[in-house]
């Protein structure tokens, strides 16, 4: 387990009754990165987060968060260094905004009072309003304040913008980016919004059916993957391309589209099919995500 990794899992398995939620997850999140954690519904994202925070015990395998195993004796101290926003964002509805801040503050010695004041103002949070009376968006902002002000080294955010309108989601993302700019914080951020991940993340980890299917620096992935389009004079041939690195091949009329991480080899291989034109173009995160989870079907 490496010091430069904020999160590291090795062959992590988690079984709930007859469902394998995690199936050998190998995850590495470098310290200081903003890592988007992507996957379809039920891919194992929330389960992985629960295991990382010690809320669920792995069936097999190991996990280390900030160098500590989440179920070790030191796990409570480890959580002092972590900010967390859950998918549900439910907070104690019998407290007011001010009360839950006052409740959380003493549990974190590194609590940032000046940030608390800043976010109270920025997010327009009313300290005397009961949590049960807050809208979902305002509750999300409060949950974010409670995570960001902990002075945490690692923020684990489970779909922090789910259920928010685009303007509020933008506010939240801006707050996150602004927060990280000022300090050495790692953000591990699960989301279904690929545009958000594309906007703020420098690393991604894509999981499908409890396994990591793709991970690494976003720029590397974007640079590595290309879409190569072959246009033929007639119907695109059905001959199969054997070149290593092909992620997906799609035929449509005269066009053969290949997603690959070795475009030169694919082009060289496909020349034998005599295409009329060849066009290699960069791919988006959405393409990478969709193709990564599709290849597992």
């Amino acid at each position, binding site marked *: 387990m490496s010091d430069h990794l904020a999160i590291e899992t090795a062959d992590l398995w988690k079984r709930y009754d007859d469902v394998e939620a995690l199936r050998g997850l190998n995850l590495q999140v470098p310290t200081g990165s903003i890592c988007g954690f992507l996957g379809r519904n039920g891919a194992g994202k929330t389960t992985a987060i629960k295991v990382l925070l010690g*809320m669920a015990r792995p069936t097999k395998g190991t996990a280390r968060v900030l160098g500590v195993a989440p179920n070790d004796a030191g796990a409570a101290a480890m959580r002092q260094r972590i900010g*967390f926003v*859950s998918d549900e964002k439910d907070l104690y509805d019998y407290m007011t905004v001010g009360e839950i801040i*006052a409740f959380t503050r003493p549990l974190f010695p590194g609590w940032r009072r000046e940030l608390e004041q800043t976010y109270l103002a920025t997010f327009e949070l009313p300290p005397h309003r009961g949590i049960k009376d807050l809208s979902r968006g305002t509750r999300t902002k409060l949950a974010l304040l409670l995570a960001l002000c902990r002075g945490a080294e690692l923020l684990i955010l489970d779909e922090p913008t789910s259920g928010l309108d685009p303007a509020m989601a933008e506010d939240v993302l801006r707050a996150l980016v602004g927060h990280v700019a000022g300090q050495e914080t790692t953000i591990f951020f699960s989301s279904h919004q690929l545009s958000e991940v594309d906007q703020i993340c420098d690393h991604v980890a894509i999981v499908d059916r409890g396994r990591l299917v793709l991970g690494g620096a976003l720029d590397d992935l974007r640079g590595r993957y290309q879409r190569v389009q072959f246009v033929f004079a007639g119907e695109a041939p059905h001959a199969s391309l054997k070149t290593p690195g092909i992620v997906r091949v799609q035929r449509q009329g005269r066009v053969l589209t290949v997603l690959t991480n070795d475009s030169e080899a694919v082009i060289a291989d496909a020349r034998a099919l005599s295409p009329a034109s060849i066009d290699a173009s960069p791919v988006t995160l959405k393409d990478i995500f969709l193709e990564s989870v599709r290849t597992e079907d």
Partner: protein
Amino acid sequence: MLWHKAWLETRWRFVTGLLILTVMTGVSVYEYVLALRMMPLADSVLAGDASPLGAVLRDAITVQREFRGFIWYNAFRDNLTTMGVLFAVLLGCGGVLAEGKKGTALFTLSLPVTRRRLLGTRAGMGLAQCFVIAMIPPLTIPLLAPAVGQQFSVVDALAHGLCLFFVGALFYSLAAFLSTMFGDFWRPLLIAFGVACVAAMAQFAAPEYGLFRIMNGEDYFRNGTLPWMGFVTSAVLASALLYGAAETLERRDF
């Protein structure tokens, strides 16, 4: 701050329980005046009744002829025991597993505290509330007794309060244990009441060993001796249940 959270979560149950038990106890004090007026009537009705039921009723009337007996029979034996169990169980229900239903368990578990500390704080608060609910209502009796021309010893009130507390703590711990096994509020509540009903029925078979005999302080009332064995047994069982609750919670996935 965890104490504050535990307080906020249970304060209405606690305040309601304290008020109801205190008012019921106060009412019992004032009812003595009415009961004294009814005694001759009861005597005349039961005068010729030689049946076993008649004997039981005569015994009950004999006990209640004096203020101390009336209070024991109506307050400690009936109201405070029944309602004490009810509110001890109500206070014991809930906790971090039940928070799962409300969606707040993940926030709680993300805090830098162990599950044992969460449970320990909640149990500490709950047992303190049980203690107050067990002690305050009996202590109102010596305060109110002069209003009906009677006296009631503070020592007797404290002794009966202790009896209520020890068995109440056992039912509290049972509910707390069941709340680490079932994520809803109702199953722990119903199972704990079920156990209380079984215990009440078992008392008919072996009255001298009954839980409720310890709780209503019958030995203290009749002989002036506190049921120390009952206290120790209740404390040991309550500790075992809270230990079991901590172990169960520790192993739980959320």
